[in-house]
């Protein structure tokens, strides 16, 4: 953390849909940004700087979108920058924006992330061949499915665990009007009977491809103290990365994720995440990543994650709800998805999560994003009281 405290004082989010043909890319980010400004009782003039993030440029074929989006985001005459860390970018963008405040450089920073995946095809955008390299020939899911097989083998988890997550997150999404997928009759049978795409991943074990944007207004302590808007105080932030491949790399339980969580929990004084958090929003694009990340994030011992899932501990009614918003499995505008996680936990501690509000006991929650080949991690802890208070 830096020398100053910071808080989320405005949150804005578009509804996530398979296609937003009614707006341009600028129109999409604008919707989220404007909602966040209104939430923060601010106008464009109040903002000192703008930080945007999105995933690979090949998704929409716009290089340097920050130039094109400056006027839509009120950034004319202000510092503006773009952050890029693959699928974790929504999280790292929020962290960069927050550090502009905790460092004392700015008082009010608007941060926005987005994806308009309907303009191309996400599977294509994620598997553009590289020169001289043998292509994977299996698509994005074909990269992650073998890791899931490794997890199942190592942990001895039964095959239905992933399907439980697929059902749980889609049921949660029914309470979230902004979620992309609303499948009222979702059940285990429907997931089990859905098409086997990349054995062991079935169709309903995967996330959708969405158009959507997320925006946050980050304010310095004095700005937040004067604001009538509810606050999500930022207690800790961390980012870690590692190469896609190296000798004896633990691909199931990556070192960078463990190190990131350790750093984060150290900053926030978290000793037992399952008890210390009221909920978590964690980047789970394939259902099996819930038990895998439960272990990576220290919510249980290695090999035990699937037991938490199976026991219902991560359901909205469980002792540690994971993804009460419906998560990435219900909405995935890739570049925004990490910031959606960060923003949804901010809404929880602000008491603004509507029909999927969890009960606040500790008043603290974990936001998480990952990207690339499970190699970029960004995380934050937010709380409804100032750190240490």
């Amino acid at each position, binding site marked *: 953390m830096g020398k100053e405290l910071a808080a989320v004082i405005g949150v804005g989010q578009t509804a996530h849909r398979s296609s937003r043909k009614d707006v341009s890319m600028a129109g999409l980010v604008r919707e989220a940004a404007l909602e966040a400004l209104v939430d923060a009782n601010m106008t464009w003039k109040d903002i000192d700087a703008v930080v945007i993030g999105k995933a690979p440029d090949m998704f929409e074929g716009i290089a340097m979108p920050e130039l094109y989006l400056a*006027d839509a985001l009120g950034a004319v005459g202000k510092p503006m920058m773009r952050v890029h860390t693959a699928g974790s970018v929504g999280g790292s963008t929020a962290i960069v924006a927050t550090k502009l405040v905790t460092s004392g450089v700015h008082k009010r920073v608007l941060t926005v992330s987005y994806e308009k995946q309907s303009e191309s095809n996400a599977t294509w955008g994620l598997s553009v061949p590289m*020169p001289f390299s*043998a292509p994977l020939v299996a698509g994005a899911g074909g990269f992650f499915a073998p890791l899931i097989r490794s997890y199942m083998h190592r942990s001895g988890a039964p095959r239905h665990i992933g399907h439980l997550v697929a059902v749980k997150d889609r049921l949660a999404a029914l309470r979230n009007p902004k979620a992309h997928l609303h499948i009222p009759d979702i059940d285990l049978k429907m997931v089990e009977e859905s098409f086997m795409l*990349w054995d062991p991943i079935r169709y309903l074990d995967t996330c959708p491809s969405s158009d959507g944007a997320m925006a946050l207004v980050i304010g310095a302590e004095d700005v937040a103290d004067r604001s009538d808007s509810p606050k999500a105080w930022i207690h800790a932030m961390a980012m870690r990365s590692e190469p896609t491949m190296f000798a004896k790399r633990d691909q199931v339980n990556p070192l960078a994720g463990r190190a990131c969580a350790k750093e984060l929990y150290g900053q926030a004084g978290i000793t037992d995440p399952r008890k210390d958090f009221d909920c978590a929003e964690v980047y789970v694009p394939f259902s099996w990543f819930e038990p895998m990340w439960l272990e990576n994030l220290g919510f249980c011992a290695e090999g035990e994650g699937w037991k938490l899932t199976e026991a219902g501990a991560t359901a909205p009614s469980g002792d540690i709800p994971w993804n009460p918003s419906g998560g990435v499995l219900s909405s995935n505008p890739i570049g925004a998805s990490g910031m959606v996680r960060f923003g949804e936990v901010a809404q929880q501690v602000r008491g603004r999560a509507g029909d999927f509000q969890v009960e606040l006991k500790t008043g603290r929650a974990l936001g998480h994003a990952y990207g690339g080949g499970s190699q970029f991690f960004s995380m934050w802890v937010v709380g409804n009281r100032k750190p240490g208070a």
Partner: protein
Amino acid sequence: MANSFIAEHSLEYPGGYQRSVGPVLGRFMTALREGKILAVKGVDGRKIVPPQEYDPVTSDAIGSKAEDFVEVGPAGRVVSWSWVNEPRIGKHPLSVPFAFALIRLDGADTTMLHAVDCGTPEGIATGTRVAPRWRTDRVGKITDIECFTVMADGEQPVLAPARTNLPGDDTEEGDVTGMNSQFRLDYRVPAGASTRRYLNGLGEGKIIGGRAPSSTEVYAASRGTDPKTGEPTSIEVEIADTGCVTTFCIVNIPGLSELAPEIPYVSAQILLDGADNMMFGLIRGCAVEDVHMGMRVKAKWADELAPSHNSILYYEPTGEPDAPYEHYKDNL
């Protein structure tokens, strides 16, 4: 003959991006299809063309109502320009030498970039009067104006000619809401030292890797550095073309790549004998149900070897006993 060590690498979304343009640009583009150029009025009343969705000074949304738009031009004056002496066919708007010019259309307060067909650089200057040369097959894109041309003194701009691609009587032609955006980036990527070493090996039916002097870990293929230390993998090591499947998935989706075999097929991570990093490969030569973790496999080489990854077609089972779990458990 193609150089094996320089890749002709292209980035192009097949068929082009399907872009939605929003209501403000949609109105501008619909007007282009009708042979008219619209400006949008900014917060201060300035007439901005091409229109923008948000005011460039205040960032307020503009152009929400029909009366916020005014027709400008079609003629205008060149404000600044640069000369393109060697146009790139298919990339530049014209195939003859031309000027890119910033043009202030009559009635507009901003300039618009477009091409001017004026033969030689002597044919254009700041202040030159120009008018659009419209296409007849207009679709609602900025290229509906093929280019601008220089006007003689006192000449009046001609109206856009009638469209030749009008929809049939039974077809309702709605406003323009999107566009297809096609582009392609062509790169020539030279192989570095470690990639050359690896490719040369493939051409001889060998898998070459390297290791850094400070490490015992061997990286197969074109790893130029040890990913743990960043030290160059300067010591060349030949690796066996046999190994074991560590983990895998069975792909049931057709058409993921031009190189994909018929579904179902197995995409695996393979730990080659003598290497410490994982390689991706397809497993063939047995039923997909028979592929399992620890299965011993060998590279199937192409009949004609070349310094290319295509020299290894896939991996197939050797029939040897499985590798023990201890052998590969730290690589999962």
